[in-house]
């Protein structure tokens, strides 16, 4: 059976504090598969999804490459661009591993980000809900909405 993860904003508070404390431009918390859990700073939801897909790919690649050439996955990736820097971290929360992409400019630094990352990690670990069953999300007659929406997307009506 397929699990669906229930999000009720448990990460929003800790993430907001992290953005303020570490003076970030934007940040996004995601599953290792690239699914968005929470974000601050992105204007477009589509941009968030793309950022997550690429971050998950970077993480997976670094895991495999590190294991191959150094015997252990590379962790805590950091890249300094001309105007912005990004930091990609793995956070062990509950039973799983989440990824956190942090983007900052000259208002912050790698040291500050790492400092507040530890606090964020602890806050997330404390607030993460236990994995439990949730009620069905969709009504049984969801097909009508699905068919109507897909037809509209493809210009079939």
């Amino acid at each position: 059976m397929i699990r669906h993860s229930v999000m009720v904003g448990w990460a929003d508070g800790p993430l907001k504090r992290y953005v303020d404390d570490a003076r970030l431009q934007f940040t996004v918390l995601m599953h290792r598969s690239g699914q968005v859990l929470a974000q601050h700073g992105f204007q477009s939801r589509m941009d968030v999804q793309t950022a997550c897909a690429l971050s998950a790919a970077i993480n997976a690649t670094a895991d495999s490459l590190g294991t191959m050439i150094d015997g252990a996955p590379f962790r805590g990736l950091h890249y300094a661009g001309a105007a912005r820097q990004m930091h990609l971290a793995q956070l062990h929360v509950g039973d799983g591993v989440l990824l956190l992409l942090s983007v900052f400019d000259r208002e912050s630094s790698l040291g500050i980000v790492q400092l507040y990352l530890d606090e964020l990690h602890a806050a997330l670990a404390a607030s993460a809900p236990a994995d439990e069953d949730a009620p069905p999300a969709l009504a049984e007659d969801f097909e009508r909405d699905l068919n109507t929406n897909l037809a509209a997307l493809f210009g079939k009506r």
Partner: protein
Amino acid sequence: MSLVNYATREITCKIVYYGPGRSGKTTNLHYIYGQVPGDRKGQMVSLATQTDRTLFFDFLPIDLGTISGFTTRFQLYTVPGQVYYQTTRKLVLQGADGVVFVADSQARQLDENIESFQDLHANLAEQGVDARQMPLVIQYNKTDLPPEIITPMAELDEVLNFRNVPSFPADALHGPGVFETLRGISEQVLRRLSTGERR
């Protein structure tokens, strides 16, 4: 793993287009990208080689609109089909909510289809996923080619579709079958969310 946000009433699902090299996975996404209005899709990201073969994955986020009161978004991925990108395929398959297997209908590609289908099942098993429980549809692409060089759909079904999942003939380059395939996998994936099944 579908993500459901009951507070904001949002659902996000990951769909992976899987199949042998040059079967038309990326072409499916290109066609969808071309059809979906700009405000309902994100940027299509293609990590490809200089010859446009998929190196890592293609990615296209689309907004399906409101379904049963939930804003529903699908993240469409393709895997690289070439045999030597095995590691990459495993990475992209992680967390998939549904799989579209894009088979190449050309008769000379039959062995590649079988090998890729077996590869899919092996990779799911390696990730602890019971392939029988994974929403799956099969698309037989390139059915527009001359009949003498393609394998009839009934024969392909006999070889590949032992689970009797929904299967669709398609010409992804020009569009026929792409919509039906996406609707097929969408129904299967979302049905899980209407019955509250868990892994």
